[in-house]
């Protein structure tokens, strides 16, 4: 019994220290934590979160201190890293991968005074917000370009983890490729990881060997670009970051994640005491999704058309999922003129008509 009490006291002391930390930190810079799933130099997803985090720090200068941890495994280790950040006095923590969802919610329950922002998940709490970008809007532009640029009518797609976000991207790209090129086919390879340069290179290689001359990727490394460059006449798109080092060919455009404005907003909200749990999902119009420069390898008229598509999405005049659309099994998805609501998009677990193959399950 005594031992038990002792242990309890120890734990209470630790948590008291955690709660006490912000008190002494009144004048010190506010600590903002970032938990990354990959290394900060992955060239894609994590690098861009880190880049945006640093932009946020530049914006606030001495008022904030950046605390981050890279390559955190999605599981119990993430929970410990998050707790460490809380104990060290972070007031706001961004967890930048889907797999951090349950750890974030668990730790948030223990530290009600710390605010959490989880990227691409769906579980919220009074101190947990979720945020994501409407990447499918960018995919529409990519699909449009891919449909025009392919000569073999085969477009390769390196898919990462079969979650709705990835499926949504495939559907959006396919719909817009078909729209400009009724003969286009998609070859999809799932690698079940977000970042694995070796697997990505293999997948790109396999797609190119199957006759694909445009390769889209939902994975984070530049390995597919290198493979495409080696193969010759193959076009690729930057993912998460511009990957401009491969422009003008093979990389002909890109989807750029731009989290900085959101990060600045949220940090400001904590400083002002106005932070509230929100569910944010922004696209091209809000600047969270950027379309990288369409390179000189693309003919002018094609480029103009893609840019017009981008602008109409940004202006909210066009929704990439506008009916009539059918699901892969032929049943109706959207009626003429109908647009998909966010709930449907968030849980999207089916291919649209015309895509071959199955979503792994």
């Amino acid at each position: 019994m005594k031992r038990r009490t002792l242990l309890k006291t120890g734990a209470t002391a630790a948590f008291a220290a955690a709660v006490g930390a912000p008190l002494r930190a009144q004048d010190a810079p506010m600590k903002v934590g970032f938990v990354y799933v990959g290394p900060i130099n992955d060239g894609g997803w994590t690098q861009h979160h880190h880049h945006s985090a640093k932009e946020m720090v530049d914006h606030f200068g001495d008022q904030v201190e950046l605390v981050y941890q890279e390559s955190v495994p999605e599981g119990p280790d993430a929970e410990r890293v998050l707790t460490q950040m809380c104990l060290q006095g972070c007031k706001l923590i961004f967890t930048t991968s889907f797999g951090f969802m349950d750890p974030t919610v668990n730790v948030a329950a223990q530290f009600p005074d710390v605010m959490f922002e989880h990227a691409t998940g769906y579980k919220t709490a009074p101190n947990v917000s979720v945020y994501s970008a409407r990447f499918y809007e960018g995919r529409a532009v990519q699909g449009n370009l891919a449909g025009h640029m392919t000569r073999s009518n085969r477009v390769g797609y390196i898919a990462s983890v079969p979650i709705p976000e990835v499926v949504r991207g495939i559907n959006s790209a396919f719909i817009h490729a078909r729209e400009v090129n009724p003969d286009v086919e998609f070859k999809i390879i799932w690698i079940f990881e977000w970042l694995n340069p070796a697997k990505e290179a293999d997948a790109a290689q396999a797609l190119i060997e199957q006759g694909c001359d445009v390769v889209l990727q939902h994975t984070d490394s530049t390995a597919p670009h290198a493979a495409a460059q080696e193969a010759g006449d193959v076009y690729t798109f930057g993912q998460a970051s511009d990957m401009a080092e491969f422009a003008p060919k093979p990389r002909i455009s890109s989807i750029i994640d731009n989290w900085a404005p959101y990060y600045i907003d949220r940090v400001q909200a904590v400083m002002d005491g106005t932070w509230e749990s929100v569910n944010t999902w922004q696209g091209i119009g809000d600047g969270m999704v950027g379309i990288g420069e369409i390179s000189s390898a693309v003919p002018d008229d094609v480029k103009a058309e893609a840019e017009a598509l981008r602008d109409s999405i940004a202006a909210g005049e066009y929704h990439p999922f506008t009916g009539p659309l059918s699901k892969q099994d032929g049943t109706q998805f959207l009626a003429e003129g109908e647009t998909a609501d966010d709930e449907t998009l968030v849980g999207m677990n089916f291919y649209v008509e015309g895509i071959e193959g199955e979503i792994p399950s």
Partner: protein
Amino acid sequence: MITLERRPQPSRAWSYLSPILAVLITMVVGGLVFAALGKPPVEAIRTIFWDPLFGDFAGYFRPQLLVKAAPLILIATGLSFGFRAGVWNIGAEGQYIMGALFGAGVALAFYPIEARWLIFPLMVVAGTLGGLLWAMIPGVLRVRFGTNEILVSLMLVYVADFLLDAMALGLLRNPEGMGFPGSRNLQQYPSAHNAELIANTGLHWGVIAAFFAVVAAYILLSRHIFGFNVRLAGQSPRAAAFAGVSANRMVLICLGLSGGLAGMAGMFEVAGPAGQVLASFNVGYGFTAIIVAFLGRLHPLGILLAGMLMALTYIGGELAQMNLQLPRSAIQLFQGMLLFFLLAVDVMTNFRIRLGRKGVA
């Protein structure tokens, strides 16, 4: 001129000294590496080895050491029998995964029935069995066809990894998970949850199993004929054969034992700290346990200490990453050096250094 001379008997003193020396050399060389990266070396080493135990938030970190060390100790204890007998199970990682899948599979099959007295023990049995059966594959192949158990057990890790992916996306996927991969969280299923037995101590059933395994292994090795046979088979297979020890039985028993314990570790992990079957569930405990086994001199008590030390480098390493911005790869390098220097220093156990010219006939 320096020559190495084989000792007539392995040196007892060196065999105890070399792990300690290896740790010290790792600290020095690690410090140099950190210094080369422009980080304060002494502070880095202190952060890794001291802060988790006696630093500001040690109250939180000490229990975490148990959580992290338990699977390492459990797996390493099992491996040590085989390593002593010359049976090389390199695939504990795969057996760990299979144990988790079997354990979680049983739990999810019963969901949502509440009957802890039945379900939890059944999960332990299933998890152990899962690891054991997976280890039997290289075992039976070696006994029947003379295949190399090193290769087969290692390759089966990758098979298990794919099975894990498939399960997280398919059979075991949470039907209420919005189409995202991953099973239900067992932490929210009281009958299956391997919870902390006393709050904030880190003590869960896996920790108890690890300590129990250490004690049992100690008794088995020092007091039981099986332990004698294991040592005999490793040191002198021919003598063992004459003594009536069946080499084939030894292979199967050693693989079964290590596989079973690895499976059990996986089950406790998935039902407790991890909570979910996720593609990212395994973080390399099965491989790290090999280092732990050798660092602990294949001795149960040594493994206990080595497991705690390894856990310390994990948790301290995370702290160093966060506080000093050390790259994660530097921490991994640091852990790898531990085994490297151990093997290097181990030369001294079997050899002695002679200065001067070679002995004249």
